[in-house]
């Protein structure tokens, strides 16, 4: 079914990047790209996984998820685990090296089946070097999104490391390989981060990449607790990407809910289908799926393929369905995100310094994030409609008119936190699901 795509990709694919070209092509064809999370320790398993994703009945991008030793730069630990036959939770790209990785991708990665490296590393220079050397041209992360939630690395150091990595991609781009960098900041902590902060952070990270010469970026957004709010947020994100990134290639990637996942098969499929609908209806280009196994264990390859095919089918159908837009929420989010982005840009003409200052002063503050450079004074809550908002903005200087009627003074107990963390699980597993 991808033959049309294959034939229509122009011959300059390599110059325009496998990843970048494929996204542009599918956008033209009005087809949603679906992508799994997938990583195996061994070459054989990883290659099998990629081949099966490639042959799914949907336009897919392959994923090479890196193991968590490599994520924290413990290459020796990854080596020991490989040597002793321990099952790793991802592909140790640095440890395997460029020849092994390149060979694994040979004949698998093509112009109509790009592969993206996903890693979660605050200091990712070795991964960037390894992926480029292996023939890959796309990855994701960012100085905030891969530092604050996932590491103990000082933010300043992560900003510096990501600046170097963005430069590595920019240099490869100048030499004729258009490399793609996705900002993961639309997914901070996976859940319970107010949408306005997610949007502001992913825009800021993309501006950061752009400032170092990256020419192809994606902005991310993780499915929240209400589809109306998600559609409003995604429409705002597209409008603002047009405003801030109109001189480079950009697209939006949506993530199926990343928090505590429904445990029943029907609940898991319902939330996946909802994410596909939201993505299609807001005209976003790419969706990272989850599977029905998510609540219980790492999914099998087959479960991933089933999710990819279902999400694509739902998305294609959703494009013909009518849907409503919460204009009030859209307007509110737009103002709030512009406020946050401009506030940071005005802190310093150098974005690196502005980002750092914003977090140190608490002007940007991710609720419940334990990182030492995050103030962790802001709090969020899920309102009676099921929308996610600020319970307290901490020191984030949000103007009163954006914040009014949203204050929620109650102290969050462990039970409250659990209830909020499990909001979607309960909503979808309970079967109380309105289309």
């Amino acid at each position, binding site marked *: 079914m991808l033959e049309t795509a294959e034939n229509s990709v122009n011959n300059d694919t390599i110059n325009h990047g496998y990843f970048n070209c494929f996204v542009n092509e599918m956008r033209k064809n009005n087809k949603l790209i679906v992508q799994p999370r997938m990583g195996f320790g061994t070459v054989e398993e990883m290659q099998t996984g990629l081949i099966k994703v490639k042959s799914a009945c949907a336009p897919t991008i392959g994923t090479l998820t890196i193991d968590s030793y490599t994520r924290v730069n413990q290459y020796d630990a990854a080596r020991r685990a490989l040597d002793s036959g321990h099952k790793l939770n991802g592909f140790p790209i640095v440890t395997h090296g460029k020849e092994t990785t390149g060979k694994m991708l040979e004949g698998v990665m093509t112009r109509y089946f790009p592969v993206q490296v996903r890693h979660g590393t605050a200091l990712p220079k070795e991964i960037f070097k390894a992926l480029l050397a292996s023939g890959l041209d796309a990855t994701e992360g960012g100085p905030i999104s891969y530092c604050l939630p*996932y590491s103990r690395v000082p933010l300043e150091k992560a900003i510096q490391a990501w600046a170097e990595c963005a430069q590595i991609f920019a240099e490869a781009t100048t030499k004729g390989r258009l490399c793609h960098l996705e900002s993961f900041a639309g997914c901070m902590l996976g859940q319970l981060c107010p949408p306005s902060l997610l949007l502001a952070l992913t825009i800021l990270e993309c501006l950061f990449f752009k400032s170092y010469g990256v020419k192809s970026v994606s902005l991310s957004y993780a499915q929240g607790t209400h589809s109306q709010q998600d559609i409003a947020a995604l429409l705002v994100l597209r409008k603002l990407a047009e405003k801030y990134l109109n001189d480079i290639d950009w697209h939006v990637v949506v993530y199926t809910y990343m928090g505590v996942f429904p445990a029943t098969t029907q609940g898991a499929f319902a939330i996946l289908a909802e994410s596909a609908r939201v993505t299609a209806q807001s005209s976003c280009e790419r969706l990272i799926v989850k599977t029905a196994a998510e609540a219980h264990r790492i999914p099998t390859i087959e479960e991933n393929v089933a999710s990819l095919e279902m999400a694509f089918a739902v998305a294609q159908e959703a494009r013909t369905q009518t849907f409503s837009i919460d204009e009030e929420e859209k307007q509110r989010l737009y103002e709030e995100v512009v406020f946050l982005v401009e506030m940071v840009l005005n802190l310093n003409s150098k974005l690196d310094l502005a980002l750092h200052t914003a977090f140190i002063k608490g002007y940007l503050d991710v609720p419940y994030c334990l990182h030492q450079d995050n103030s962790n004074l802001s709090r969020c809550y899920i309102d009676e409609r099921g929308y996610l908002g600020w319970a307290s903005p901490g020191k984030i200087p949000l103007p009163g008119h954006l914040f009014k009627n949203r204050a929620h003074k109650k102290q969050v107990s462990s039970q409250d936190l659990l209830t909020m963390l499990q909001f979607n699980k309960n909503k979808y597993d309970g079967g109380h699901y309105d289309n």
Partner: protein
Amino acid sequence: MSKKILISSISSDSHTWNLVYMQLLIEELGHKAINIGNCITIDYLVKQAHYHRPDILVISTVNGHGHIEGVEIMNELKKHDVLRNLKTVIGGKLGTLGNNNESYVQKLLDVGFQRVFFGDKSVDDFISYVNEVKEQ
């Protein structure tokens, strides 16, 4: 009597919601929680344990490497005289095998963990354990 409980993850695990939840839970039980966060290297964990001298050390991890790194942590703690008898427990998602994670429990108990918490009853079991320690 209020206990001092040190909460830590393992070095390769970046998840934090489990740690935030454990902190709130422990505080509500009336104990002092010291949450040192995610991606904790063994070296840092040992230093923090030396510094705080907790009554209980709680290793909470959900990325599937708990069954490997749990053993490494315990072996390291045993090398330090003052930490050798520290009451240490581990819980969460300890392997990548879903329900088969039970197969790791004995290994972790053998190496010296006082309790291994997993599955639906883990929170209740943890509360009972903390209460038990209180009465000793």
